[in-house]
């Protein structure tokens, strides 16, 4: 075999190892979740009973699935005006200016803060604020977690949309200006429609981030294993229940946590795939 072939084979084997890694991951998660699905069937997904007491064990993931979706959707709603404004600030109003560079760097730095530090900041700064505002007594809950998640996903929501907004061709915008449109009208009628798919895709990817966030949410959501009744209620997410209960987990309970991990992996995979699909289709 000549060196050309050897190099090509090494590269190919490397790429194959990634596929094996991913396949192995899915198989491991499936294998680990078999006991709990054998015992409860699909009820595991649709039941809201979570009781680890020995002898009366019952596991249903619904409270965590609901908790995950509510916190992430709420986070996206809070994040939306902030992220869209930042994208317009960076990609339209102050494009190429010094101030845009500074703000852009600061937004990027948001992505660098570790999740646990967000959790600490949420616990010592945001939580007392929420108590003071009278939203709820302890300050823990869905809303507190969503605010922190919203801050955490701002850089993900802005990165692609800023790029797409700044790529909107100038001649289109100038055509609108020449007809007497104001800047706002240009943004609403030219820039945003042109950049729509990129903006939507970046919010989907940000949503995917929020779904899997663990530490910050674990520290703020209150960790109650029931379906929350409102946004100021305490709750639990799929990621945070794994982090919280993994330590003492064995047997069926461990299997239940793995099954939640499998569901979380599938949900984030689908959401991210969907985001990538939109980017590919409209790019």
């Amino acid at each position, binding site marked *: 075999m000549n*060196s050309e072939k*050897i*190099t*090509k084979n*090494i*590269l190919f084997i490397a*790429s194959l*190892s*990634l*596929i094996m*890694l*991913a396949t192995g*991951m899915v198989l*491991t*998660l499936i294998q*680990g979740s078999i006991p709990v699905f054998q015992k409860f069937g699909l009820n595991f997904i649709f039941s809201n009973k979570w009781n680890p007491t020995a002898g009366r064990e019952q596991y249903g993931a619904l409270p965590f699935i609901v908790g995950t979706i509510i916190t992430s959707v709420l986070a996206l709603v809070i994040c939306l*005006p*902030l992220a869209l*404004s*930042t994208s*317009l*600030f*960076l990609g339209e109003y102050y494009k190429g200016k010094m101030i845009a560079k500074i703000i852009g*760097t*600061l*937004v*990027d*730095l*948001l992505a*660098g*803060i*570790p*999740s*646990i*530090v*967000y959790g*600490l*900041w949420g616990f010592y*700064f945001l939580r007392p604020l929420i108590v003071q505002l009278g939203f709820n007594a302890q300050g823990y809950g869905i809303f507190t977690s969503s605010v922190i998640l919203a*801050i955490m996903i*701002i850089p993900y929501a802005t990165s692609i949309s800023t790029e797409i907004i700044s790529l909107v061709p100038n001649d289109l915008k100038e055509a609108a200006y020449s007809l007497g449109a*104001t*800047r706002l009208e240009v943004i609403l009628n030219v820039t945003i429609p042109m950049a729509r798919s990129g903006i939507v895709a970046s919010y989907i*990817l940000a949503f*995917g*981030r929020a779904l*899997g*966030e*663990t*530490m910050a949410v674990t520290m703020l959501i209150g960790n109650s294993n029931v379906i929350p009744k409102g946004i100021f209620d305490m709750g639990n997410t799929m990621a945070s229940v*794994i*982090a919280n209960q993994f330590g003492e987990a064995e047997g069926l309970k461990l299997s239940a946590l*793995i099954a939640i*991990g499998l569901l*979380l*992996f599938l949900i984030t*995979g689908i*959401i*991210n*795939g969907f985001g990538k699909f939109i980017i590919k289709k409209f790019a």
Partner: protein
Amino acid sequence: MKGKFRSAKNRLFKGMVIVFSLVAITPIMLIVFDLFQKGIKQINFSFFTKIAPDTWDAMTALNHGKIIPGGILNGITGTFLMVSVASLIAIPLGLLIGIYLYENAEKRYAGVVRDISDILQGAPSIVLGLIAYFWIVKNITHGFSALAGSASLTIMMLPLIIRSTEETLKMIPISIKEAGLALGVPYHKIILRVLIPTGFSGLTTGILLALSRVLGETAPLMLTALGNPFVNFNIDKPTSAVPLLIWQFYNDPNMVNLIWSSSLFLVILVLTLNLIAKQIAAK
């Protein structure tokens, strides 16, 4: 009359964009300011050279109004150990897969590999912790270990490096590579002598960003490395890490003061890596 209304709306919108953008960057400034204010007084020589104190020592110091003795040496060495081992696998493998994707960009199989890499990039870190727990903790080290922690960090780093490698190589003018091929240079030498040196700054940026991403990871390490009150360099033994220590301090009322200094240290480390990476990329 109508024109006045339109221009008022235009100005109002611009004002809102500016205000919301400022709101979006407020948290990063508040967080960094808060960490400096509360953490700087605990940072001294022993912070870097001594292991974490036990809760008794911390309580005694608190009662005497002194700063808490000890440091986070066991966390720093643990983070260093686990991130190094993860880099040792993830960097070369990620580069190889990235090069493969670049060389075979059009192939259907490469598209699958790229999609899998994207899915892995979106996978929640806690799920990666579950996987490493099953593969390494249960089957290889038969107990919590640094190796298991490294494994979860490796899976996190891989897709980041793969993506940045492919993106970097795509930017290199094809003529440079073809010039080498025309001279009959063997393929592996093209990679080592042409592609990697030409794309060096881009590749370094990708690696630094991947490092800064895993340095602050807490959730997967809770499931794999667990923590250790002492300095440990044994790859098959439980090991601490800076984020794990923060979590431990957070759960111990006597250690609260150490939370801020450790977080400050971690955030400075991560943000510095981030800024260096951006600086290199800008060149």
